[in-house]
């Protein structure tokens, strides 16, 4: 069925069954491919987007549940936290294969938006749902600290 969702600052008409995960609408229908599919069961975080500013797993968010909410994806996000996180990620060369990193970054932005100066434990517990098979975790931790410093400066 046809409905309108608010995504990346625009209203977009989409055609999908109610139970279709937001992830597949974003990727296959809207061609926004920065958001990734890794598991489909909320177990890896590759599909993380922001819904009203909160990180959510788009693979288990049915399109019918999106309603009026504002969806933001990695493709356009440019809040101060986003800029700091991306700059820190680039400065420390966090990425390896890169496939999990859209989700890691969307979660890290969420963390810094709610906690400007997280310690290692807070980082670990917030980021535990974002899997990285390349195990870039040490750099993710360091980059979140770095982004926090960049935001403070």
């Amino acid at each position: 069925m046809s409905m309108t969702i608010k995504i990346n600052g625009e209203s977009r008409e989409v055609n999908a069954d109610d139970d279709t995960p937001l992830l597949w609408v974003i990727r296959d229908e809207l061609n926004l491919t920065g958001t990734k599919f890794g598991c489909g069961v909320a177990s890896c975080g590759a599909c993380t987007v922001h819904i009203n500013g909160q990180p959510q797993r788009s693979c288990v968010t049915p399109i019918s549940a999106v309603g009026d909410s504002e969806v933001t994806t990695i493709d356009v996000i440019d809040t101060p936290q986003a800029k700091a996180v991306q700059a820190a990620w680039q400065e420390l060369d966090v990425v390896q294969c890169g496939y999990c990193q859209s989700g890691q970054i969307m979660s890290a932005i969420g963390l810094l938006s709610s906690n400007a100066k997280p310690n290692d434990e807070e980082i670990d517990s917030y980021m535990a749902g974002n899997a990285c098979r390349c195990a870039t975790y040490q750099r993710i931790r360091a980059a979140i600290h770095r982004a926090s410093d960049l935001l403070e400066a």
Partner: protein
Amino acid sequence: MDVSNTASTMNRRKFLKGTAVLGGSMVVGFNATGLLAAAADGTTATSSGFNPFVKIAADGIVTVVCKHFEMGQGTTTGLTTLVAEELDVAWDQVDVEFAPSHENYVNLAFGGQGTGGSTAIANSFMQYRQAGAAARDMLVRAAAAEWKVEAKEVALKDGMLTGSGKKASIGDFIEQAAKLEPLAEPPLKDAANFTLIGKNKLPRKDSVAKTTGKAMFAMDVKVPNMVYATILTSPRFGGVLKSFDIGDAAKVNGFVDAKALPNKAGVAVYAESTWASIKARRAITAEWDNAAADARGTAEMVSEYNEKLDADPVYDATGKGDLAETEATAKAAVKSVSADFHFPLLAHAPMEPVNCVIEPTEEGGIRVHDGCQFPMITHPTLAAITEIPPEKVEIVTYYAGGSFGRRANGNSDYHVQAVMAFLALGGKKAVKLVWTREDDLAGGYYRPMFAQRAHIGIGDDGKISAWGHRSVAQSIFKGGPMESMAVHNGVDHFSVEGIVDTPYQIPMSIGLTDYESPMPVLWWRSVGHSQSGYTMEVLMDMAAEAAGADPVEFRLAHLDESDDNQARFAGVLKLAAEKAGWDGKSAKGRGRGVAVHKSFGTYVAQVMDVSVNDKGAISIDKVTCAVDCGIAVNPDVVRAQMEGAIGYGLGAVMRNEITMKDGVVEQGNFPQYQPLRITDMPVVDVHIVPSDLAPSGVGEPGLPPAGPALANAIYAATGKRITKLPMANNGITFA
């Protein structure tokens, strides 16, 4: 600058159609015999029988054509570094694109185009430097001719040519330079003059694209007139499709069709979106002929492995016929160690499940969009199945979301599945094959199960006097395209690597027996070393304990440092011990373990620190890692690969296994095959041994020591010796 897949795809299409590249560019490359050649643009390049490795455009932008794919290991940065070093251009002036599938892009270590075995930098080290140096020399000569000075009076630095008071960008001289003959052996820099190679921190070429969602993976490809397909396959390996019933699949919005694959390996479910295909597949039921299928369970497999351990080994991997004698000597020693080891099946579970797009081309061929690891296998395999001439098969390579060996497959398994789905639909519509995580975990091509048994005797001098060893493994290479390279006298080298070729000086005899199964197995990050490193280094710890010696001292006592190989092995061990402040002691509630292993020509030692909480759960606190990989082309990439391989290896030994019940895989998705999480990740401190030796690989060698260093640390902390993996099955919990 980032890899721009769109740009490279467009260039390639123009190239194949013979259209000149706009603005002209100078290209330098190699042909099949390895000669350097140069041309003014891509069009003449093909006619002179070589492929570009370096392209220089009029705006001075240098594009390095990467013959290896990028799965995160850093090749796009590494190969670019080699060219930029010799060409003397600025780092941000260099771009990179993936090579098409072509024999001129051969991996010099394999004899075909492909990536694996930690060979990308090692086999490219001279070739990409030569390409850069040849271009440099031609540009300098062209400028010298124009400025009417001797070539030696022209300098090239940061992409600018200077001489006789003049200054110009390299882009200004591409036309004249391309008319010159490249030197057969262009002069290369001395290592002392390197400005980029070995530089501590050169930004990765793929960082920006991969942090902004712009990097293109095959999963992100959409071409016109494309349908999405998932495949319903037999739950048992070797099952053959008898019939299927589409049930309510047609009621799924976006469902297109369902067809049996021509090879009876499954049912392709076509739809207008990935989700519709996934949903429709759930509605379809199929009947399978299981006559040739494997119906064994894991417990049964383990007991079959044990029977094979007990029986006389079929193959003699050390070739001296003295296994029984060696075992008897070992058992008779006053101090001795005996142990059995078991290693489970492991899935690679790359973050991006395998997938690819196959589309028909206007020329009657096919174009494959893939994070393609083995074009040398995929290209001819797809040509043969489709009966399309190989020159009409095109492979476009994208970033791969990890591989760990999974995308390198001697049977090109997922490409074959995709092309079967493409053909079943008539071959006129583009088909995108997508695997879900469930497909990935149940899809086979696992790291084989291994069993090892050792009897070790300690002599009066406190050193190992006899080591009798039995291995049981399902061979990875037998029956595959690289069998002749790997199998000698019945022994698949990869079943005993890391043991048979250990640098330790040990009187050893090794027997091997193969395990047979229709379940396909595959190399998994570090191949045989993924378990032989564990076996060897836990045994060395047990032997050290039996001998009453310090684990580091005991290992060093079995190495003769007048031999270069053994000296490098001892070197990393000493460096890791020194950096970790090794004193052979573990404080209460803490444990330290050490391990050292050589694989793919690279030496890695690790000291692991763990602590135990009041509930007995283990925290992995810190890994001190020393690596000797010859010249570290990009030290930060070397560090990243050590961090990554340690994490990947730790996650597997802690809790990963693929198990079977009645031949059906029991792990559905990540909740049953938990990846290492950030909460598990220790601090990793990497130390690189300075070296002027040729570089060896780093993608895999960080993994083998991680598991045994952890096991030895857990033993030091708790007294529990873990010889059957994963650790979680031994009552070990992790905090």
